[in-house]
């Protein structure tokens, strides 16, 4: 592998989550030359990787700015001219061995189409110019992450799998972390607590009053620590309103990559869902992530060992402060939050992956079962391997105080019914697809078969809406079936599409089989435990009677 192009046109967070994969590629192929394409606005995140040989900036503002500010014909022409000039760039004319498009936007596939590369992964265009995805982990991304389905694979780990470097990505080295001379440096003997209050949208962070309460509480509880405020210049005003005396305000003084030295000097960083979560994780500083606004912490939360994620139930301002104080002091967090802790788990095939574990609450076991099962299924389908994961036991939670056992059993039964229906759909879909090939010259049969396949699709749509536990199976079928690399020739295209349909439905049937087996194992384990428990209860009762 000599020349590798990585396209990452998303924001700071996604670029930071790509850095471990870039390191992994350099480690796996030491001789390779890595070109990274990012949007100009977010280039600072890319500068953190010492393994990027060529950084190319996509000038989004320059290209799209004029047209977005005033969508006139003149500005359209200006935008097109800028775009053409960009596409004439040297890097576009190179021949790459591997092109990795880690931007899962359909427009990025157009860019990938124009690149010459021996192998392409991620979104691209097929021979008939439609959007296509060929590699299994990118199909997984599109089916599960883009559709917000059950997924416990962290994006760092998923990107590494798409790049094929999950064995090579950790621990991460950061480069270019120097600071401007006019900014004070951290003192070795001092203790610091870092705080980031801003986020890309207001809904992702707390209000200023709550932050003020947190800061006052932290200052009171950890008098020996200095609070350090990170962020952009937009946040300076709010920070000055809440920062206790003797705090250090770095907001607006440092570019993203220049924060690393200060982040490393902090014992903990308290932050909402921002790029700071990823930056601090990469720098190796403990993160306390206050996760608001429906962000999926399993996918984009802090990565590594010992970070905390707090998801509020309905806390008061002071509860936030107490929870953060408890985490720093190593105490239990109160019941106003779901407290998750991150851990690095070694897989049975040698690599590590980050996982969030429930820390102060009972997990929803049905959901947990399906999350873990879909992870096992993903490793099998995308990498042909089986992670030696203990299959979660579906406990007989009816005996637990306040259990929602009935609803759990109901959901499980509902999912099981949907799985049985999907298995039948899988069988019929395979048959219809084979018939499409066999009767490709018979127009009447073709019309009927197309209608039959549409009917199957309608049935799948109904099931899709009925249970979140079968949604990953259905979206997997859709991606496999709809994003196919097809020829422009009508006859070849028909065979390729029918082949892809057959493949998608065949996998569906097999995937349901695998899930059923896992479910059976989980239920058997639960039954064994229930039998054991009831036997011991009987013995205890007998002893009690004898004593009387």
């Amino acid at each position, binding site marked *: 592998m000599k020349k590798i192009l990585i396209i990452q046109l998303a924001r700071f967070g996604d670029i930071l989550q790509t850095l471990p994969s870039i390191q992994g590629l350099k480690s796996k192929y030491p001789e390779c030359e890595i070109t990274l394409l990012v949007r100009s606005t977010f280039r600072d995140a890319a500068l953190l990787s010492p393994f990027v040989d060529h950084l190319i900036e996509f000038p989004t503002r320059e290209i799209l700015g004029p047209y977005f500010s005033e969508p006139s014909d003149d500005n359209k022409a200006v935008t097109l001219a800028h775009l053409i000039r960009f596409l004439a760039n040297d890097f576009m004319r190179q021949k790459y061995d591997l092109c990795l498009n880690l931007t899962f936007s359909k427009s990025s596939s157009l860019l990938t189409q124009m690149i010459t590369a021996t192998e392409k992964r991620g979104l691209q265009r097929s021979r008939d110019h439609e959007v296509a995805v*060929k590699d*299994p982990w990118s199909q997984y991304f599109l089916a599960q992450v883009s559709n917000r389905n059950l997924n416990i694979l962290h994006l760092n780990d998923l990107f590494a799998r798409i790049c094929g470097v999950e064995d090579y990505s950790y621990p991460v080295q950061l480069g270019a972390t120097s600071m401007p001379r006019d900014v004070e440096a951290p003192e070795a003997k001092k203790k610091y607590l870092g705080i980031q209050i801003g986020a890309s949208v207001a809904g992702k962070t707390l209000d200023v009053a709550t932050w003020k309460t947190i800061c006052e509480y932290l200052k009171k509880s950890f008098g020996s620590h200095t609070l350090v405020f990170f962020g952009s210049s937009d946040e300076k005003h709010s920070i000055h309103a809440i920062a206790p005396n003797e705090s250090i305000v770095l907001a607006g003084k440092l570019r993203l990559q220049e924060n690393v030295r200060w982040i490393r000097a902090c014992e903990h960083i308290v932050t909402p869902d921002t790029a700071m979560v990823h930056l601090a994780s990469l720098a190796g500083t403990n993160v306390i992530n206050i996760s608001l606004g429906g962000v999926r912490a399993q996918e984009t939360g802090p990565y590594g060992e010992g970070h905390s994620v707090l998801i509020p139930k309905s806390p008061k301002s002071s509860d936030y402060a107490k929870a953060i104080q408890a985490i720093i002091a190593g105490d239990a967090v109160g019941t106003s939050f779901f407290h998750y802790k991150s851990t690095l788990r070694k897989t049975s095939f040698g690599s590590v992956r980050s996982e969030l574990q429930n820390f102060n609450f009972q997990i929803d076991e049905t959901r947990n079962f399906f999350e873990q099962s879909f992870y096992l299924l993903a490793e*099998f*389908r*995308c*990498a*042909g*391997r089986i992670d030696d994961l203990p299959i979660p036991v579906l406990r007989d939670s009816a005996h637990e105080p306040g259990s929602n056992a009935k609803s759990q059993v109901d959901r499980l039964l509902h999912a099981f019914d949907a799985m049985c229906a999907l298995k039948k759909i899988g069988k019929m879909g395979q048959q219809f*697809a*084979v018939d499409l*090939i066999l009767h490709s010259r018979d127009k009447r049969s073709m019309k009927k078969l197309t209608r039959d396949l549409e009917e199957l699709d309608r049935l799948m749509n109904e099931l899709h809406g009925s249970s979140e536990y079968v949604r990953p199976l259905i979206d997997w079928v859709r991606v*496999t079936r709809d994003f*196919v*690399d097809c020829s422009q020739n009508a006859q070849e295209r028909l065979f*390729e599409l029918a*082949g*892809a349909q*057959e*493949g*998608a439905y*065949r*996998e569906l049937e*097999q995937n349901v089989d695998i899930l059923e087996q896992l479910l059976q194992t989980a239920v058997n384990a639960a039954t064994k435990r229930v039998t054991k428990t009831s036997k011991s209860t009987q013995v205890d009762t007998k002893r009690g009677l004898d004593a009387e």
Partner: protein
Amino acid sequence: MPSKHFIMNGEEREFPVGSARFSEFLSSLSQDLKSSEQVISLIRIDGQEISDEQEGFFRNKTMQEIGQVEIFTSSPTELAHETLITLDQYIVKVIETLNKAADGYKSKNYLAADAFFVRAIDSLDLFVQTIGGIKLALRIGLHTKIAVVEASLVSIMNDLLTAKRENNYIYLAELLEKDLVENLGEWKQDVFPILKNWKVS
């Protein structure tokens, strides 16, 4: 009883029993050839080379019913060396099929992939049988290098069948396009030179 003329290695010969079946003629001839360590390498009937399947068609016919028969013989060693030359080309074809099957499994066009998979397995089976025949002809017993490559092929084929049974398409594709291709490469590079230079004692 009329006799039947035939040509062997360009020389005209006579088979005494014209009413005998073609199969009896072939067994009798093979018996005679044993002493001179020769085997039948080619049969032509009326100038047309006949395949194994066509041979079956003629087996029950009497010699009188069959046109002009031409027989060519070679020594097993010569035959083995000739076969080795064709195996070189055969491996190229097998690799093509393996890659097509792997591509099918990777692109999830399992219908096409399965068809190429069956063809690949048949081809490999024939390859193994042919190698067995060559070893027998060249009287090769245990040879470490050959044994290692053979064991590796058997192990890959076992894995292949397990992967197929478990519907592990990713592993299947990897075995087909990497492990098997690598193994066939070893046959070409390491084993065939040994076989080609083998002197029958």
